[in-house]
C-alpha cells in the first residue's frame, strides 16, 4: 500500500503513478487473455477508473478496510493486494488469493483489509457499515472505505447503510465511482435526482473529478481524517468512465446493440481525460519526474505483469475438494 505522507512529494507521486500503471497494464493483459478465451468466468475491467481506487487507497492505512465491487481488481491492487495471487485466482489456481474458489469477482485479502470484491451489486454497503460499527466499538481509529458504482447507488442498502452510519457516527467513507453506466444502461435513464443529494441527507459530501488522482486523494483524505476523529461518515463521488465493456464478453452479449458512442469512449480516453496519461503529463510538465523515469517505470510494470502471468500459468489447478472442506470453520478447542 502507498504510505501516508504529511506532504505530497515526488516519491508519493511516483507511487500513485506506479499503482495506476500496475492496474492498467495487468488489466490490459486480462483483456487480451479473455479475448483469447483463456480465462474462466466473467471479467469486469476497471480500465479508465484507476485514479479512484489509487487516490482513495493512498490515504488509507494497511489496517483500514475496504469493500469492493464486481469491478474489483483496481481496489484490490490499490489497497496492496498481491498481483500474483490475484492472477492465480483468476486463473483458477491453488495459489490464488482465494485458492481458486472465488475468481475475478471475489478477490479478497482480509490480511490487507480487503474485505472482498463482491458479485452482488450493492453487496459491500452493509459489510462496510458492519465493519465500521465494529471499528467504532473497538475505538481503534480504523476506517472503512466502501467503493460502489452509480448503479449500486439505486440499491436500497445504500440508504440503509448511510442511515446507520450517520445515526451512529461510524467511520465509513462511501466512495461512489460514478461512470454513468450500469451494465448496458445509461444510468441517467434509471436515476432520479442527483446521487450526491441522497447522501447529503446524512453526511458531508464532495463530488470530484474521478480521473484526477490528486483530487480524489484530497477528498478522501479529508473524509478519512473526519472518520478517524470520530466525526462519522462522508460521501465522496468520483466522476469517471469505464473504457472497456461492462464485461469482456460484452460484444457477444450485445448482439450488435449499442448503448454508448465510440466518440464518448474516445473522449474519455483522450490524453487530457485519461487518469494515467493525464497524471504523467502533469508530473512531466511540472518537472516532478523525467521522461526516462516514466519509461523505466513502464518497463518495470510490464516485468511485474509478465512475472505474474508466469506465476499464474505455472500454478497448480485448484483443489476440487475445497468446496467441501472450507464451508465451515473448525470449532476451536
Amino acid at each position, binding site marked *: 500500500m502507498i504510505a501516508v505522507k504529511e506532504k505530497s512529494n515526488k516519491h508519493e507521486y511516483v507511487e500513485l503513478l506506479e499503482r495506476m500503471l500496475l492496474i492498467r497494464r495487468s488489466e490490459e493483459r486480462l483483456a487480451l487473455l479473455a479475448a483469447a478465451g483463456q480465462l474462466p468466468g466473467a471479467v469486469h475491467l476497471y480500465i479508465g477508473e484507476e485514479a479512484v481506487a489509487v487516490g482513495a487507497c493512498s490515504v488509507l492505512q494497511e489496517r483500514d478496510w475496504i469493500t469492493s465491487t464486481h469491478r474489483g481488481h483496481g481496489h484490490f491492487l490499490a489497497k496492496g493486494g498481491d498481483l500474483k495471487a490475484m492472477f492465480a485466482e483468476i486463473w483458477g489456481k491453488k495459489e490464488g488469493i482465494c485458492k481458486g474458489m472465488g475468481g475475478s469477482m471475489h478477490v479478497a485479502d482480509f490480511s490487507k483489509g480487503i474485505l472482498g470484491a463482491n458479485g452482488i451489486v450493492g453487496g459491500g454497503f452493509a459489510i462496510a457499515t458492519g465493519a465500521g460499527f465494529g471499528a467504532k466499538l473497538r475505538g481503534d481509529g480504523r476506517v472503512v472505505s466502501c467503493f460502489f458504482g452509480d448503479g449500486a447507488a439505486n440499491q436500497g442498502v445504500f440508504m440503509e447503510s448511510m442511515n446507520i452510519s450517520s445515526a451512529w457516527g461510524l467511520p465509513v467513507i462511501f466512495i461512489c465511482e460514478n461512470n454513468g453506466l450500469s451494465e448496458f*444502461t445509461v444510468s441517467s435513464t434509471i436515476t432520479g435526482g442527483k446521487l450526491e443529494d441522497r447522501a447529503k441527507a446524512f453526511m458531508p459530501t464532495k463530488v470530484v473529478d474521478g480521473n484526477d488522482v490528486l483530487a480524489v486523494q484530497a477528498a478522501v483524505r479529508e473524509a478519512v481524517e473526519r472518520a478517524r476523529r470520530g466525526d462519522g461518515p462522508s460521501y465522496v463521488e468520483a466522476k469517471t468512465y469505464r473504457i472497456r465493456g461492462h464485461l469482456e464478453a460484452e460484444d457477444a452479449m450485445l448482439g450488435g446493440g449499442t448503448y454508448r458512442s465510440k466518440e464518448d469512449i474516445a473522449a474519455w480516453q483522450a490524453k487530457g481525460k485519461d487518469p494515467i496519461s493525464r497524471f504523467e503529463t502533469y508530473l512531466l510538465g511540472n518537472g516532478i519526474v523525467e521522461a526516462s523515469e516514466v519509461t523505466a517505470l513502464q518497463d518495470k510494470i510490464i516485468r511485474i505483469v509478465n512475472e505474474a502471468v508466469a506465476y499464474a500459468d505455472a500454478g497448480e489447478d485448484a483443489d476440487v475438494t475445497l468446496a467441501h472442506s472450507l464451508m465451515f470453520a473448525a470449532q476451536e478447542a
Partner: protein
Amino acid sequence: MPSKRMIAAINEALFEEMERDENIIVFGEDVQLAIMGDTRGLYERFGPNRIRNTPICEATLTGMALGATAAGYHVVLHMMFANFVYTGFDAIANQISKMRLMTGGQLKIPVTFLACYGGGGSNAAQHSDSAHPALMNLGGINVVMPSTPADAKGLLKTALRSPNPCFFLEAAARGGQMGEVPDGEHLVPFGKAALAREGSDVTLVTMGSATKWCLDAATSLGKAGIEAEVVDLRSLVPIDEEAILKSIAKTGRLVVVDESRDCCGAGSHIAAIAADKGFFSLKAPVKRVNIPDVAIPYAPAAELAVLPTPGRIEAAVRQLVG
C-alpha cells in the same frame, strides 16, 4: 419443425404472447439490450411502455411487479441471475406468495419471473445458484424449468396466460442448446412431465439443466445394458406425481437428479414423494444426485465436481442396478 436455440424459443414465446396480449409488460435490469439474450428485439418492437430497463433494486422490482398487476397488467420481471432472487426475496416470499390468501382471494397475481440459474460458466458462488428450492417452499408460486427449446416456448406461453405468479427458470449454461420448436400456438401445461427416454431398469427423475446430463448418462448406461427411463418434470410446482409414480412402478428404482443443493432441495422433495406414495414399487434405496451443500466454487474443475454430471449419475445408478 424448425430447429432453434433455447434462447430463441424463449424469445419467440415473448414476442408471440406480447403480440397477442397488449397487457403484457416486461421490465428488469438491462432487458432492452437483453443482457441474457431472451428479451432481444422486444424494445424495438414494443417500445418503452411495454419493455423497460429498471434501476438495480431487486427488492423494489419484485414488489412493483405485484403492484403493477393492480392496473391490469401481466408483468414479466426479469431477475437476470437466480442469485438475485435472494436480493428481491422479501416481496416474493412475504407479498406475492401470500397476498392472494391474505386478502381472501381478492386479487389475481399474473406475474411471470424470468431468471437464469445454475453453474457451468465459472461464474462463482454469487452467480451460479439455483434458487428453486426456496421458491418451491413458498407455496403460492408456480415453478417451471424447461429442458428443451420446445418446452421452453410452451411453458413460457402457458405462464404468460396464467393468472398466477410463476418462476420460469432458464439454465444459464444451456441457452445455446438446439431443438425443434413448433411454430405459433404451442402450449405446454403446468404439472405434466415428459418422458424423455423410456427404460425399464431404473428411473431418473429430473428437470431443466439436469435433463441433458441424465440423457447422456442413460445413453452411456444403455451401452452397458442398463436401460434408464428419464422423466423430465418440466414443472416443479405443480409437480406431476403421477408420472413419477408410474415410472417407478415400472422400474422399481429411482435416482433423482437436480441442479440444486441437497438439503431441502428439489431432489429431496421428489425422493420424499417416492418414499411415501411410491413406497411399494421401490426395490432399492432412492438415490439423489445433485449439488452438495456447498457454495459453487469458481475454478472450472472444482465447479464441475459439484454439478450432477453424467459420471455421478451413472455411478448412482450402478449402486442400484448391477
